[in-house]
Structure formats: structure tokens, C-alpha cells
């Protein structure tokens, strides 16, 4: 793979939190390369460091060892260049702003002119299928709709890299399926690079081109699966033998890494 297509390049990344009860090893010697256009899922039991890893990529945590590059720069430089859009576990919408106001927030901060702001907000809202909800306040929307707004918010400033920390974790199965399907289409259209934290095996198998399986204490990568599925996915595909094989392999990986202490 050519150097220019590397989006994330991490080499022996360590992250240790100093706590009152002594150091906690959140990440240990993480080697991971993510290429342009990849959809990478980080999956593992809680405490395996998947959220820590995505936060290190986003420069929300500073690694205590090793080296990591985002688009060839340090994570801090990449953050200052606004290289990525981040979607949190909860929608994190500002309650005092309408849907449209929330979508314009990053654009206002980045100093984009007013007319362009409205255009991009409308465009992003269309992508998540919420046209017509511009003037609603967050509390007037369901949880799933709020999370779609938060995804739209991350798309407004056209980042090439999307970092998503269990964006659908708090939603019920049906809504989650819908959003998975919807989001897959969005990814196909936009060709963005996505790093996606999840603890759902079907979600990881359905969405990803690459699945990274992690295990806790200390958080490390124990398996890396290149998805054998075709790039275009449908929800029906989840009944095919290939999909079930893939899910099985992920589950085996998780089981192997799970410690019962």
C-alpha cells in the first residue's frame, strides 16, 4: 500500500492512565494501519481500550508511548487542521440550538460564511434523511434521530476521516439495523475512511472492511480480520454463510481474548 493512502499509522502505541490506585494500562503496543476508504471496526469487551484508541487518534488522549500519525501528521496537528469528524456515544447536541443550529456549529467555528453554512446544513440533513426537521429542538426528536443529526453534524465540514465511538450503542435493535443500513449507504457514497467502535458482532461484520479485535488488561489487538464480504452490503446478507462465518470468527476472537478474572 502506498504511503499517501495511509490515514492512520500507529506503531507500538501505549496509553497509561495514572490513577489513585496506581497506573492503568489502557493500551499496550498498538500497531494498526488504516488506509484511505477503509471501514475499520474496533470490537472488544468493555475495558479493552477501543474507546481509548479512537480518542488517541482524535488527540483527545495523548499516548504515553509509541508513535501515531494521522494523515502523516501527529494527532494534534491533524486535530488542529480539523482532519476528522467525531461522533460520540451520545448525540451531544446542544439543547439550546435547533437541529439546523447544531449542524451549523462546526461551520460557525470554522468561519464558513453564512450562505454556505445553510447550504451545507441542508445537504447534511438530507444525507441522514431528516430534511424538514431543521427548526426542531433536540428534545423533539427520538434518540435515533438525534444520533443521525450528530452524524450529519460530523459531515458538514467534509472531513475525510470519521471517528465514531459506539454511535448506535444506546439504540434498540430495530433502529440500529436501520441506521446501520443507512450508514453503510452513506459510507459507500462518500468514500470516507471510518474508524468505528462497537461491541456488537453483527454490526461490526455488516459494516466493516477490516475488523480489529481487542482484549482488555492491558488493551491490545489480538486479531485483525479483513472482511471477505463484497464491498456493497445488504441487510439480507446477514443470513449468508460468509456472513455467519465472519461473525463466528469474530466471536472466537473475542472469546479467546476474554479473561474471566
Amino acid at each position: 500500500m502506498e504511503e499517501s493512502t495511509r490515514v492512520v499509522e500507529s506503531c507500538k502505541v501505549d496509553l497509561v492512565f495514572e490513577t489513585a490506585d496506581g497506573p492503568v494500562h489502557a493500551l499496550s503496543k498498538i500497531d494498526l494501519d488504516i488506509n484511505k476508504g477503509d471501514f475499520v471496526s474496533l470490537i472488544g469487551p468493555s475495558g479493552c481500550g477501543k474507546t481509548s484508541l479512537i480518542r488517541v487518534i482524535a488527540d483527545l488522549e495523548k499516548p504515553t508511548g509509541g508513535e501515531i500519525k494521522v494523515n502523516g501528521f501527529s494527532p494534534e496537528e491533524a486535530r488542529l487542521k480539523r482532519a476528522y469528524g467525531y461522533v460520540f456515544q451520545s448525540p451531544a447536541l446542544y439543547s439550546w440550538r435547533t437541529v439546523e443550529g447544531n449542524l451549523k456549529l462546526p461551520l460557525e467555528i470554522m468561519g464558513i460564511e453564512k450562505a454556505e453554512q445553510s447550504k451545507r446544513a441542508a445537504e447534511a440533513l438530507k444525507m441522514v434523511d431528516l430534511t424538514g426537521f431543521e427548526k426542531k429542538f433536540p428534545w423533539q426528536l427520538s434518540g435515533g434521530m438525534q444520533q443521525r443529526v450528530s452524524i450529519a453534524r460530523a459531515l458538514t465540514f467534509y472531513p475525510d476521516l470519521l471517528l465514531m465511538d459506539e454511535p448506535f450503542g444506546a439504540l434498540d435493535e430495530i433502529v440500529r439495523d436501520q441506521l446501520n443500513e443507512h450508514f453503510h449507504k452513506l459510507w459507500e457514497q462518500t468514500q470516507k475512511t471510518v474508524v468505528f467502535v462497537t461491541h456488537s458482532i453483527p454490526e461490526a461484520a455488516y459494516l466493516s472492511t477490516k475488523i480489529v479485535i481487542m482484549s482488555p488488561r492491558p488493551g491490545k489487538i489480538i486479531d485483525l480480520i479483513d472482511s471477505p464480504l463484497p464491498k456493497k452490503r445488504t441487510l439480507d446478507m446477514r443470513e449468508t454463510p460468509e456472513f455467519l462465518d465472519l461473525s463466528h470468527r469474530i466471536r472466537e476472537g473475542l472469546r479467546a481474548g476474554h479473561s474471566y478474572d
Partner: protein
Amino acid sequence: MKEVFEMNWLRTSSFVSISTVLAFTAVIWYAAAVYLNSAVLIDKYERHKVEWDFSKLVDDSWSMDRPIMPAPHQIIFDLNKSIFKQKISSKRSLIYHGWVTISSTMVGFAMGGILGILLAVGIVHVPTLNKSVLPWIIASQTIPILAIAPMIIVGLGAIGVTGLLPKAIISAYLCFFPIAIGMVKGLRSPDPIHLDLMKTYNASKSQNFWKLRWPASTPFLFASFKVSIAISLVGAIVGELPAGARAGLGARLLTGSYYGQTIQIWSALIVASVLAATLVFLMTLLEKGVQKRMGVRL
């Protein structure tokens, strides 16, 4: 605004409960007037060897010139006389005195509000201020205002500052505190996740403040404002007590107590409490308006 009125005033159940409480208060008040005034009256009857019975005692105790405890109707007559039957510019008009007090209340509230908000902004953004200023702010409120008010009035008078400003300073001294404390809490109220979000956008400090911390703090701001504006009125009245101010509700209270004019004292007290209630009510309306714009579920 129309909805607020409908909600608060036209709901019959609340009308019934309010009038019940009022009636109950009136009964207790009239009884208390008889009880508290009776000793003086009985003493007077005996000195003047006047024949008296209970109904005469009740009548007299509700119509004394300088009662220990005036009856409600005496206060209402006095209010009527000093509000509606006087020229507004007259020294006997409670509207005149109320206006004097209200103007220093408002100036003091504005000063205290700005001071409180600035202190909170400093405390939230500068760690040293958090450690060094906050204890002083708290200490400042342990000094009884009655002790410090005369010193402020006299001290400022010595350098030629008199009139509205010294009183406003006393108001500000009282009302910056709840605003500073409330706003420190309010400016710190955003979730970590919201702060992280701003960080991913590489937002500047001022963007962080105006787009996140400031709007997030508005519920705290209004809660503090409602407390402060009432305290500010108290501060203005206290500021009128020492050094013999000639105008203002505080001055009315003071002259009333010099001359034993209890009815006058009660009238001034009632005007003060109606003013305080009105100020808090107006603040609530303002809050509702802002909440509506900010999409708060009402």
C-alpha cells in the same frame, strides 16, 4: 406572556387557595392586633378611669394612632392615602420613595450582576483566581451588611460621593455573590463530551465561551438573578437606614420608627415586598422569554 397570565392567575383552584390563605392571614392578623395592643389600651383605660368592655377594646385596638400592631385596614387606608392621594413628587408619596429605592436597586443590581459574572468568568478560566478569589468572595458575605453599610455611606460621603451611588454599591455588594456562585457553577455545567466536541473542532477559547459555556449557564444565571434582584432591594433599603437618608423606603422606615408611626412602617414594608415580588415576577417573565428562544421544554 398571555399564557403565563392564564396559567398563574386565571386558574380557579389557585385563586381559591390564594384567597383562603389571605383570609386566614387576615383573621390571625386582626386577632394579633387586639392581643398586642390590649396592654397599652387597658393601661390607658385604667389611668383615665374609663369604663371598658371587650368590644370597646377590640374597636380601639383596631383604630389607634400609633398601635404596636396596626390592623390590616389601617395599613390599607394609609397605603391608599400615601400612594393615590399624594402628588408623585411629594415627600409623603410612597411612589416617590419607592422610586428612589427602586432606582438604586436597579443600578446596584446592574453593578452586582456585571461584577458577579466577571468574577465567575475569571474564576472558571484562571485557576489562580479560583484559589485566591473564591475564599474572599465567601468571606465578604459573612460580614453583616448592617455593620458595613454605614461605613460605606460615611466613607463615600467623606470623598463627596452621596445620593444614589453609595446605596447602589451596598446593593451590588449583596447581590454579586449569588450571581458569582451561580455562574461559576453554570459556566462549569457543560458535559465533558460537549467540551471534547469543541476540542475536535479546534474551537478557540472565546468560541468555547460564547457557543458553549455561556448558553449552558443561562438556567443558573436566571436562578441567581431572581435571588439577587430581591436581595438588591434589601441592600438599597439597608443603605437608606444609616446616615439619615431623606428619601426612599428605608428613610420611611427610619422616620416611622423615630416617631412611633407603626402604620407608616408597615405601609413602607408592604410597598417594599410588593416591589420585590414584582421584580422577581418580571425576571421570571424575562427568563421564560429567553427559555422559549433557547427551545426549553416548558
